């Protein structure tokens, strides 16, 4: 189990370094996702399975997809590349190796967990939920308000301003264009 921690920690550090140092934003994001998966493995073997699942669902799932959408909307970092470049082995070989290491970790954990007794340090999702909605219920309310503020703020900031052109001005433009053509 300790070896798995060290392997996952090494994968997380390497992929985070590659993500920070990368040139192409999409590649960096994929490395960041590998890093989050490795951190999720660490959470799992530390006895926090609920947090490990949340890490994958929310971080690697929702937040990173948001990043990828924005990068694709901005369409930066992809101009100099052609599709033949994407299929070269050096594009996918390092992420594949790192994720394969995590897969081996995962299979090993599944194989040994069947026999190993899990006791003591594990904090079950049930306990977390009970604590979340009894002791920390005020925090849940505040988090809800924060998320509402985030939704409103993101909508307000992300809105593109409509160009309001009066129809007479529009006609004038059309006339101008016609004049310039003549």
């Amino acid at each position: 189990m300790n070896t798995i921690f060290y392997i996952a920690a090494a994968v997380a550090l390497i992929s985070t370094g590659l993500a920070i140092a990368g040139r192409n934003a999409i590649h960096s994001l994929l490395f960041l996702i590998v890093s989050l998966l490795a951190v999720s493995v660490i959470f799992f073997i530390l006895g926090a399975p609920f947090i490990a699942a949340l890490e994958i669902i929310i971080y690697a799932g929702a937040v990173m997809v948001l990043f990828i959408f924005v990068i694709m909307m901005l369409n930066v970092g992809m101009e100099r590349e052609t599709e033949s470049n994407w299929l070269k082995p050096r594009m996918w070989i390092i992420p594949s190796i790192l994720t394969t290491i995590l897969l081996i970790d995962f299979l090993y954990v599944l194989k040994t967990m069947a026999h190993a007794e899990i006791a003591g340090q594990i904090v079950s999702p049930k306990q977390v939920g009970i604590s979340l909605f009894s002791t920390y219920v005020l925090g849940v309310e505040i988090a809800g308000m924060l998320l509402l503020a985030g939704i409103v703020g993101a909508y307000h900031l992300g809105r593109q301003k409509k160009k309001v052109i009066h129809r007479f001005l529009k006609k004038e433009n059309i006339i101008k264009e016609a004049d310039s053509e003549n």
Partner: protein
Amino acid sequence: MVTIPIEIQILFAGLLFLMGLIGLLVRRNVIYMLMSIEVMFNSAGMVFVIAGAHWAQVDGQVMFIFMLAVTATEVSVALAIILQMFHHFKTLDVDELNNLKETN
């Protein structure tokens, strides 16, 4: 179960935080800076979970869930700001945003 000394675990979280900090300081692309902030958030949450696992308390995981909500809000607002920035300035380089700088 895992028998790694807690110092090693905290050290790992610290290394991850350090990488995020270095990325935030070195990169000038806003998307990379935001990703670095994500890494730092993640490592800070990891310290909560490590501490919670060490004392077998639920509070660490509850704090991580709250941190997740904060991170989601922060990312959505920051990405909207990045969209507006790209719309206005046609660049993602933060050094280009120097309209308030005094030019001689």
